[in-house]
């Protein structure tokens, strides 16, 4: 099927086609031709927006002040990185202390770092896991990021109780970094492997 050119569709929208050419496009559209119908809608929307753009630009001085704010911003102090220490791992308990059956499909870990405790639970499912956690103490975290091989693969915000969740997480080794304004607390080498 030969479609009308863009120029013809534009003339059609602007009602500047001779009667015969207009009738030919009407017939083509009645085909039906969804491709040209979509193109027509897009042309109408764009022309309508171009012709009725009543947005207002700020005065030059207002713009200049906003641009200048970037150079005047205070330099951010370097964020301190603190490595969290593992204090509990249910997979490392003796077999007598923690018999692992079906319930041990969940791994529980507790980390600590300078006034901050991080409770992590890893729930395993087929080929992956859900990582849920809660941050207790410390300043309000802004974001929790999951890194793998040096790349951030996901980030989430913690709620007002410090809770966060990543799902699904493929099995592998990760760094979990909890960022706040002044510091970042890192759980390095977090193994998400189902050893249960």
């Amino acid at each position, binding site marked *: 099927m030969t479609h009308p050119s*863009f*120029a013809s569709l*534009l003339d059609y929208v602007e009602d500047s086609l001779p009667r015969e050419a207009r009738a030919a496009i009407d017939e083509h559209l009645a085909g039906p031709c969804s491709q040209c119908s979509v*193109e027509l*809608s*897009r*042309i109408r*929307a*764009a*022309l309508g*927006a*171009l*012709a009725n*753009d*009543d*947005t*207002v*630009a*700020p*005065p030059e001085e*207002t*713009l200049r*002040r*906003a*641009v200048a*704010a*970037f*150079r005047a*911003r205070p330099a*951010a102090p370097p964020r301190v990185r603190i490595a969290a220490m593992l204090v509990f791992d249910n997979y490392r308990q003796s077999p007598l202390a923690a018999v692992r059956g079906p319930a041990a499909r969940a791994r529980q870990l507790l980390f600590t770092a300078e006034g901050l405790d991080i409770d992590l639970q890893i729930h395993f499912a087929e080929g992956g896991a859900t990582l849920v956690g809660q941050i207790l103490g410390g300043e309000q975290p*802004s*974001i929790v990021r999951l890194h793998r091989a040096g790349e951030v693969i996901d*980030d989430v*915000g913690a709620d007002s109780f410090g809770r966060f969740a990543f799902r699904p997480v493929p099995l592998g080794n990760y760094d979990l970094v909890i960022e706040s304004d002044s510091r970042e607390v890192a759980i390095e080498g977090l193994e998400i492997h189902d050893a249960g």
Partner: protein
Amino acid sequence: MPPPDFLTLADSEIIDACLAGDARAWEALILRYQRLIYSIPLRYGLPESAADDIFQAVWMLLLENLARLRDRTRLVAWLVITTRRECWRQARQRRRMADGPDFALIENLPDDDSSLEDIFSRLEQLTLIRMAVQRLDSRCRQLITLLFYAHPQPSYEEIADILDLPLGSIGPTRARCLEKLLGILKSTGFE
């Protein structure tokens, strides 16, 4: 106009450049969304003096929160929400100070009014189109700007003079430039 390389970059890439300390990226971001942010208070019926203050406040908030933006691909939504909050905050503040009539309109507008949502969607669409116009080649950008954005609107004769084009070629050039513009818009998901 921002340096050409910023025109084609996604918001997330410009934010990365800002965070790396590139002042040109910050300027590009402001130029991209200046009309969107400045027009919202005016749509609320606020005076230009309030729109100036809100404009500054929104960019300062973005500067403070740039590193913490959760989803950098949704910067437009963040800007619209933040600007609306600033409109309400400044309206309340000024009302307490002056109790003037300027802010009666905003006080009477429900913030979840669907007609307001339509207005903000339309502002976002207009922003998208202006961004696409900026990405056109120089000749097309000038022509589309003269045809649609210039006030007062010049005649075809005046445009032919300004662009040094034969009068008879304005129409076909206009069609070619609109086709290029639609091509750019299509790639950005414009419907």
